[in-house]
């Protein structure tokens, strides 16, 4: 799988955030063009489980986000609940009871297709990237690859917690994040500290940075019970986007 040159340019503009804004430097319209859709939106999940839109194209994409979070139904809600992609290339063919209130609204807006990419690490969901298009039909293979790559890069930047100044996780290969021990340690830490998995993963990551060690090595210590997080110092920032 390769990244298109245009998507590579978008990835270059990703940077760790201290506030919710400014996560992606590129303007959403040009990102949408690269992905072959009419609009994009990114919403992050806050620690209390609500979603906060942090980046979106003007117009329909913003409206789509507002509607879903007001109505409590829609592709984003499904993607978070199931922890999987939601790809609906033709909304006109969906049964009306799929999203009974939302679907007529989307039809009125003229949105024909939606694609939701949750920012996932296993059962941890950091947020959702949503693409929408007036014309029905699947994404191109290149568009799908680019959307998956952007999703992975955003996930990595958010996990980075703003700690690594300009060391862009997006251009690094975050392969450590896909190693079994990291996920096992995440599960263990969530029980040790009595916190959700998403916070456990952030805490593992923050610990690794604080001690200047690779996350995989710290995770292996946790799994081998050489290290535990029962009393791991001060609480990290609850939004998980800043390091305390």
């Amino acid at each position, binding site marked *: 799988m390769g990244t298109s040159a245009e998507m590579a340019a978008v990835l270059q503009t990703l940077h760790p955030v201290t506030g919710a804004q400014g996560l992606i430097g590129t303007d959403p319209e040009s990102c949408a063009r690269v992905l072959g859709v009419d609009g994009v939106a990114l919403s992050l999940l806050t620690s209390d489980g609500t979603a906060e839109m942090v980046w979106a194209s003007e117009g329909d994409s913003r409206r789509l986000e507002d509607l879903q979070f007001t109505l409590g139904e829609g592709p984003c809600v499904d993607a978070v609940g199931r922890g999987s992609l939601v790809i*609906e290339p033709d909304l006109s063919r969906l049964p009306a009871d799929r999203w009974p209130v939302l679907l007529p609204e989307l039809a009125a807006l003229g949105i024909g297709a939606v694609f939701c990419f949750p920012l996932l*690490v*296993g*059962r941890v969901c950091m947020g959702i990237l949503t693409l929408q298009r007036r014309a029905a039909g*699947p994404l191109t293979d290149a568009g799908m690859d680019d959307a998956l*790559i952007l999703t992975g890069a955003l996930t990595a930047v958010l996990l980075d917690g703003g700690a690594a100044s300009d060391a862009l996780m997006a251009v690094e290969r*975050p392969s450590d994040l896909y190693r079994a021990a990291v996920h*096992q340690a995440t*599960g263990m830490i969530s029980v040790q500290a009595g916190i959700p998995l998403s916070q456990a993963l952030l805490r593992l990551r923050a610990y690794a940075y604080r001690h200047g060690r690779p996350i995989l090595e710290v995770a292996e210590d946790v*799994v081998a019970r050489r290290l535990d997080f029962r009393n791991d110092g001060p609480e990290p920032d609850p939004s998980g986007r800043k390091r305390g």
Partner: protein
Amino acid sequence: MIAVAPQERVLQAFGEAVGTLIDDFDLIDALHRLCARGVELLDVTAVGIMLAGPHGDLQVLAASDERTGVLELFGLQSEEGPCAESYRSGEALVNAGLAAPDGTARYPLFAERARQAGYATAHALPLRLRQRSIGAIGMLHAGPHTLDPEGVRLGRTLADVATLAVLQQHTIEQGNVERAQVQAALVSRTVIEQAKGVLAEHWTTGVDEAFDALRGYARRHGERLADVARGIIDGTLGTEALR
């Protein structure tokens, strides 16, 4: 045991894997069984299946032996090692010695760790989907081992079955199905690892025992491993139910 020609046994393994694909099948468990069959058919010590994530890094999806040591040896090949090379080139890479000079020059970290774990030979074949490579199947053997042309054919059949299994997952999506299936498979694997950690900590056991409990429960109740894992993480399934 009745001697069965290798090709027939591959077909049996194929049927066993595909037989589970009819309805909601458990991808990770099916691939684990396929890897275990691979060990018998190819007469190697361990077999693992890796799938490429969106960045092109390989992630372990299943192995013949789910103990952490074996998973981690395949996991080490995310960027370097025979599986990574085979995935990138789309070609088979067989009979690779892990000792110097070859092993240490091309994939020093993997070769060293594999030797420490007692392995001497590695093979890898790409998982092919039409014109592209989506992952790799890897084999490790404790001693010298030669995969002859027939062995390579058997390995390719196993790789094809694994690819088919990934594509058979029930996804509700209507479009972009193949890429969505690869993504779903990777998420399933990660969820299982997270649940292992949760269980191990609750019970103060090792993660390997936690996996045995997860799998035991999934098989007894006809549920998918990843679904049981999600239940544990979400708290909808009590950890006590698995003991």
